[in-house]
C-alpha cells in the first residue's frame, strides 16, 4: 500500500540537500518540540548524528522504557505530545510499556523508532523488530517512512493525531536508509488541531432537564476533563449548580481537594463517602470518564438508581459499558458552559453529602511510633503547597497518595492509572520537572516499583534534575501481599523483599543525596530537608510491612461492599 503524496511539500528549487534524519529533526523543531527523551543505537544513529546541531535538548535516559515514561509525563504536564526515540529491535520493544501506558491513559506522545533499512525489513535482520505491527493495539496511529519526502507531513500529522480528539501515542518507524537518503530540504508543515464539535443544543437541553428533575445528582469527573482543557468550565459548572462531585484517580485535582463540593476519589480504594454517594445518587453526570472496572466494581451494581448523562470526546466510550440517558459526545468545554439547568432542589442531598463526608473523613490516629504513610503524604502536600507535582509508582503508596495528598490542579498528580505501570514514578518525575522546572516535583515510590527503573537515578544525576524522591519501603510487594492476605488465604507467594538493598546507599552511589527515617517523629523534619534540597534527593522511609490500604472494594464486588481493616462491612 502506498502512502499518499503530500501536496503541501514543495521542495525549494536550489536548497541544499539534507538527509532524512535531518528532515525529521527539522520537522520536530517545526512542531515546537524542545525536549526529547531517548537512547541511541545502530538504526537510529543518523538521527543522533543530526541531533547535536539541532535546537532540541535530548535527555539520555538509561533505559528506553525510562524515555517513554518520561515523555508520557512531559505530555501530561504540557498538554503537548512528549517525544521519545529509540533504535530498532530491543530499543523499540523497550518502549512498548511506555507506549501502552500513554495509550491507556490517553496521553499525547510521538514515538520515533529506528528501523533496519527497507531492503532488510522482513528478512530477520540484526535488531529487526516489527514495531509497527507490535504496537498497533496501543497507538492511535502509526507510520513507516517509505520516502524521506513524506517526513514533514507524517510528523505534522502524527502530532495532530496525538494531540487532538482523545489524545494518545503515535509511532513513526524510520528505516535507516530513509534517514540517510538525501533530498532537497522540504517545506515543513504544521497542522492545526481540529476543534471538536459541540453536541446538539437539544441534547444539552435534555441533559439540563434531567438535572433539574434530579433530587440527588452527582458529577463523576474523569481524566478527560483536563485532557479537554475544560477544568475551568468544570469548576464553573459545579459552582453554579451546587452539584457535589467525585473524581477518578486520573481526575484528582480537577476540583481542588478542599473544594466543599468535592467528596473524593471513587472506586476500589476510593473514599467511602464517594462510593456511597454514587450508590445513592439518582443522576450521574459522567464527564470524561469511562466506567473503568476499578471505578465501578461489579458493573451492574454501580450507581443502581441513577440515570446517566455521559459527555466525552470519544463517542466510542459512550454506552460502551453503561447505558446512558443523554449522550453528549464532543467538545466538553462548550458543553459544560452551555449546560445551564434552572433552579435545583438538592438541599437535602447536599446535607446528606456533607454528613457522609464528616462521617467518613480520613483518620490519622494510627497507633504506634512507626511512620504512618498516609499521614506523611498528607503532610507532604501541606508543606509543599500548590507547586507540588507528585509522580507515583504503582501499588499501595499510589493509593495512599491518591487518598491523602491534596491537589489543586490535575497536573499535580501524575499516576499510571489505566495501565498500572510499576516503574512509572521516577522517569515521570524527570519528565514533569523538565516540563515545569519551577514545580516542586516529588516522586513517591515503593521498594518494589523503584527497582523497575532505578537506573534513571543516573539521569537525575547527569542533568542535575531537582526531583525529590520519597521511597516508602515496606520490604514487600505490598499491594500483592495485601491481596494474598485478604483473598488468597494468606498464602504469601513471592512478595517478600526483606533483602532489599540499602536504598540510601544506592542513591549515594549514583551521586544523589539520600537519608533514611524510621520513626514518626522524624517525618516533619525529614520532609523539610527534602523540600529544601536544591538538587535530586532521596528520602528512604521504612514503614510497617503489614500496613494495608483501606477501604477496599474486593475484586468483582459491588462498591457497596467496601472492606475496612476490621473486614467486611456493608455500606
Amino acid at each position, binding site marked *: *500500500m*502506498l*502512502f*499518499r503524496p503530500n501536496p503541501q511539500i514543495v521542495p525549494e528549487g536550489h536548497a541544499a540537500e539534507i538527509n532524512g534524519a535531518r528532515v525529521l529533526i527539522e520537522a520536530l523543531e517545526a512542531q515546537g518540540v524542545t525536549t526529547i527523551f531517548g537512547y541511541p543505537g545502530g538504526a537510529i544513529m543518523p538521527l543522533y548524528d543530526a541531533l547535536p546541531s539541532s535546537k532540541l535538548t535530548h535527555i539520555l535516559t538509561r533505559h528506553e522504557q525510562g524515555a517513554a515514561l518520561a515523555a508520557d509525563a512531559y505530555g501530561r504536564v504540557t498538554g503537548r505530545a512528549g517525544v521519545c526515540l529509540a533504535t530498532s529491535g530491543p530499543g523499540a520493544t523497550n518502549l512498548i510499556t511506555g507506549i501502552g501506558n500513554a495509550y491507556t491513559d490517553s496521553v499525547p506522545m510521538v514515538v520515533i523508532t529506528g528501523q533496519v533499512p527497507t531492503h532488510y525489513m522482513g528478512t530477520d535482520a540484526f535488531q529487526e523488530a516489527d514495531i*509497527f*505491527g507490535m504496537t*498497533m*493495539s496501543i497507538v*492511535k*496511529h*502509526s*507510520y*513507516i517512512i*517509505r520516502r524521506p519526502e513524506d517526513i514533514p507531513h507524517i510528523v505534522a500529522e502524527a502530532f495532530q*493525531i496525538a494531540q487532538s480528539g*482523545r489524545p494518545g501515542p503515535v509511532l513513526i518507524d524510520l528505516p535507516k536508509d530513509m534517514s540517510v537518503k538525501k533530498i532537497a530540504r522540504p517545506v515543513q508543515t504544521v497542522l492545526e488541531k481540529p476543534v471538536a*464539535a459541540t453536541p446538539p443544543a437539544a441534547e444539552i437541553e435534555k441533559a439540563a432537564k434531567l438535572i433539574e428533575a434530579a433530587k440527588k445528582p452527582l458529577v463523576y469527573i474523569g481524566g478527560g476533563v483536563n485532557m479537554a482543557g475544560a477544568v475551568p468550565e468544570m469548576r464553573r459548572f459545579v459552582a453554579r449548580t451546587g452539584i457535589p462531585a467525585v473524581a477518578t484517580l486520573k481526575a484528582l485535582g480537577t476540583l481542588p481537594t478542599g473544594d466543599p463540593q468535592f467528596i473524593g476519589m471513587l472506586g476500589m480504594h476510593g473514599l467511602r463517602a464517594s462510593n456511597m454517594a454514587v450508590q445513592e445518587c439518582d443522576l450521574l453526570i459522567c464527564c470524561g470518564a469511562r466506567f473503568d472496572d476499578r471505578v465501578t466494581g461489579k458493573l451492574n451494581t454501580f450507581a443502581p438508581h441513577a440515570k446517566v448523562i455521559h459527555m466525552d470526546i*470519544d*463517542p*466510542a466510550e459512550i*454506552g*460502551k459499558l453503561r447505558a446512558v440517558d443523554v449522550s453528549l459526545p464532543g467538545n466538553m468545554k462548550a458543553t459544560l458552559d452551555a449546560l445551564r439547568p434552572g433552579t435545583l432542589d438538592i438541599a437535602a442531598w447536599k446535607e446528606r453529602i456533607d454528613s457522609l463526608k464528616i462521617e467518613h473523613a480520613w483518620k490519622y490516629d494510627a497507633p504506634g511510633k512507626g511512620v504512618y504513610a498516609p499521614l506523611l503524604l498528607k503532610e507532604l502536600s501541606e508543606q509543599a503547597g500548590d507547586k507540588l507535582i507528585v509522580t507515583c509508582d504503582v501499588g499501595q503508596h499510589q493509593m495512599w497518595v491518591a487518598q491523602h495528598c491534596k491537589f489543586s490542579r490535575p497536573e499535580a498528580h501524575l499516576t499510571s492509572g489505566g495501565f498500572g505501570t510499576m516503574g512509572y514514578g521516577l522517569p515521570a518525575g524527570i519528565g514533569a520537572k523538565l516540563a515545569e522546572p519551577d514545580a516542586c516535583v516529588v516522586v513517591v515510590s515503593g521498594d518494589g516499583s523503584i527497582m523497575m527503573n532505578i537506573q534513571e537515578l543516573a539521569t537525575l544525576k547527569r542533568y542535575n534534575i531537582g526531583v525529590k524522591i520519597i521511597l516508602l519501603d515496606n520490604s514487600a510487594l505490598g499491594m500483592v501481599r495485601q491481596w494474598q492476605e485478604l483473598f488468597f488465604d494468606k498464602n504469601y507467594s513471592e512478595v517478600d523483599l526483606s533483602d532489599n538493598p540499602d536504598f540510601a546507599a544506592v542513591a549515594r552511589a549514583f551521586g544523589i543525596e539520600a537519608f533514611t527515617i524510621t520513626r514518626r517523629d522524624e517525618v516533619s523534619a525529614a520532609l523539610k530537608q527534602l523540600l529544601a534540597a536544591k538538587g535530586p534527593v532521596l528520602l528512604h522511609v521504612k514503614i510497617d510491612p503489614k500496613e494495608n490500604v483501606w477501604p477496599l472494594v474486593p475484586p468483582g464486588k459491588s462498591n457497596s461492599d467496601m472492606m475496612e481493616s476490621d473486614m467486611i462491612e456493608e455500606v
Partner: protein
Amino acid sequence: MMKHILKVDFEAEEGALLRLLGVVQRRGFAVISITMPESADLLNTAHLTLMPLQVYYRIEVLQRQIEKLHEVRAVTLVTPKPPRSVLGFLKGPIGSLHRKTLIPKESPQCSPENSSRVS
C-alpha cells in the same frame, strides 16, 4: 449468537487492513468472512462478517471503535447476508474449529441498517 456484516471504507494506508482486523479481534468479535475487492483508487472497501465472542459485545460499540481509526472513512452496519469469503481465513483446521464452535445453526438474524460517516 447473531452475525453482523460491517462495510468499512478505508484509505489504503500501510497497515490499514491489519489495524482494522486488530480492532475487531481485540474488541471481542470473530471474523467469519472478509471480502475486499481490488480497488483502482486509494480507497478500499471491506465487507466483514462478524460474530461477537460474548453476547454482551455490541456491534454498535465495535462500529464506533472502528470509526476512530485514522484511515477509516465510513463504517456501515448492513443487513447480514454473508458474502463469499475470498481470503479463505476460515478454511482448514483452525477455520473449521471456529465454525464449529462459534456459528449457531439457526440463520443469522437481521439487524437494523445503521450507517454513519466519520467526520
